[in-house]
């Protein structure tokens, strides 16, 4: 019920009602990435779009799909023979503004104790 209502009143959760209608009319599902985002294509106009699984955040598109959705390549990742190297890490969206955001060493928001600097002193404790 909540997801149903969100379609009406928000644009940043998955898809809006208009997108749902457009996708039903024109869209042909090309594939799904590891985050569950669905990628569609209009065979007539070669228009490509994504319906996010959750918050609509452009940086959630992983690199393989990034190339396809921006017409850099016509071969979508599922049809690709590419095997990721073992050192390749899973894709992370932009975490700015979330609790997982990067905090540099010395940041006040960093839970780790900050490194010692020249102005520090060593207090005496009994």
């Amino acid at each position, binding site marked *: 019920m909540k997801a149903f209502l969100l379609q009406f009143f928000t644009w940043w959760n998955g898809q809006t009602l208009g997108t749902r209608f457009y996708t039903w009319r024109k869209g042909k599902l090309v594939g799904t990435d590891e985050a569950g985002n669905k990628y569609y294509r209009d065979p007539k106009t070669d228009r490509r779009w994504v319906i996010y699984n959750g918050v609509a955040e452009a940086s959630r598109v992983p690199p393989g799909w990034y190339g396809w959705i921006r017409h850099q390549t016509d071969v979508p990742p599922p049809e690709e023979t590419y095997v990721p190297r073992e050192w390749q890490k899973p894709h992370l969206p932009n975490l700015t503004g979330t609790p997982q955001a990067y905090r540099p060493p010395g940041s006040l928001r960093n839970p780790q104790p900050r490194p010692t600097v*020249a*102005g*520090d*002193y*060593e*207090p*005496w404790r009994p």
Partner: protein
Amino acid sequence: MTKILINGRETDVPPDFTLLQAAESVGIEVPRFCFHERLSVAGNCRMCLMEVKGSPKPVASCAWTVRDCRPGPNGEPPEIFTATPTVKKARKGVLEFLLINHPLDCPICDQGGECDLQDETIAYGMDHNRFYENKRAVEDKYLGPLVKTSMNRCIQCTRCVRFLAEVAGVPELGATGRSEDMEITTYLEAALTSELQGNVIDLCPVGALTSKPYAFKARPWELEHTESVDVMDAVGSNIRVDTRGPAVMRILPRLNEELNEEWITDKTRFHWDGLATQRLDRSYVRVDGKLQPASWPEAFRAVAAKLDGVPGSRIAALAGDLATAEEMFALGLLMDRLGSPNLDSRQDGTKLDPALGRASYLFNPSVDGIEDADCVLIVGSNPRTEASLLNTRVRKRWRTAGVRVGMIGAEVDLTYPYEYLGAGPASLAAIERGEGDFAAALRAAKKPVVLVGQGALTRPDGQAVLAAAARLAAGDRADGWNGLGVLHHAAARVGGLDVGFVPRAGGLGTNGIVQAAVGGRLDVLFLLGADELPSGTLGPTFVVYIGSHGDAGAHRADVILPGAAYTEKNGTYVNTEGRVQLAKRAAFPPGEAREDWAVLRALSDVIGHRLPFDSFEALRAAMHKAVPHLAQVDVLPKLGPESLASLGRLGGELGREAFRNAIADYYLTNPIARASKTMAECSAMAVGMLQAAE
């Protein structure tokens, strides 16, 4: 005076001036690397070349005196040129040769920004390189925990060699090889043993010798400079405290011809890491035998509760070796208001008494005056550890005039020869009776110095020793010459005696206070940074410690009120000569700590005896009103021999025990030095060396 033409301008200079000095006297700057005013002339860097009319080649102006110049064919005054194309080209050539083997290290060199070679390269450097061969490589030498070497950068000016041999008196550095293969070395890869070795860092015109504790910590242009006064010994060397933000990054000497010239001791230069360790940064109150953190009001209330209803005679105060005159004055006022006569600033128990006149506890001949002395008698002191820079003056006098030095006390290495006259007061009495060769020399001397150390004055017969020394100093002397030199080693001592931080009528002195505390006859004891006491033995007394470092006093304390170290407060220090000097604040005290005078003022309010000043200026004004001579900053007191007459008439039985020197470990004499890792390392090494020597 000799007439000489410099760049066509006629000027009169003494004939013993070098051309370099003559040029400087008319305001011409001469580049130099090896030449230094306080060292012998080496003349090996060739940077100061000048043209002398009639001479076929440019001459090294640092080694060529005005008297060496020949007049013209018709008796015209000699003519020199400092800025001709020849001179410029010659200097440029010299610099190019120097840079052939100098690494391009400037971005990672600690000297960067204050390097003579950098500066001269701006003026005389080539814009391109003509040297495509490999640069010379020199192995770095180990010079101990204080001086870091990077010998590739060395330009063989030999200033460090000359300094250690001439001023410090420990010829431990030398040069091997010649020309390109010349290396500065200790020969044995052993640490330097001089207590003045840090000065070679300042002397080095390049970054070959740099400070090891300061290595890669800061750049000179990041630092803020504060001109202050050293408290590590009682000479009161003038220093510059360099800070970056809240941290003291290094300490450098300031020029004062009458005091430290341009040297400072290693303890002064390298103790700064102690300013950031073992700091008291919050108040503590002892609850059930354990010190618990407390807020300022809680700590004050604990003191007030303890003081409530206690008679003045059961309260006492002791001031330590680093206290400023203002603090001691304020604490003295507070003790007067509490009705307590028991206060003392002489925590080593020295028998000096301000009632005998100011001349009885000052180094009257003055540090600079040693250079006029014709006979020096050292009694119960090792000036090399108690006042290293004063010792270099005696050494300088010995080097220039061969002054006769006698020594009564422990036999130590003073870096110059002396006549050993005996170990105890008996030898002093023998000198007074006129026995021996040295006694005759001392009696005949016009400007003798009788240097009395604290080792001879902290004994039960201290006053008798002092009186005997005063009688030795008196006699048929040069006009106004007062030869009695009491050598202090605590920066606060003279200030404490000046503001009268001594027992009032019927009060207890240091020894009395400690005994009363052990015997349970004392209820409350204030320690103003006093850490040199046998603090475990203060009995059941309630101890209030005001200070900056967690040292002996803080361990024993029942209430700790955190104060400021000397770099964190303004204050007046009086050196062993009686010269009043001002220390300035370079940083702020850490955490909750406050300046000591403010702590005393706030405490006085809580215990109901409000002190009559609300600002530091008001306190200082009150002190100046009470002790007018403390307002005469940087003035050397001139107290003539007549001021010693009453002291000389004091009798007293001389003891039989030999004099012991006051300082056991040079590097660990005060709470700041004891908190410093660098000083601990030096101390461990000095002890190791002593053991190896035995």
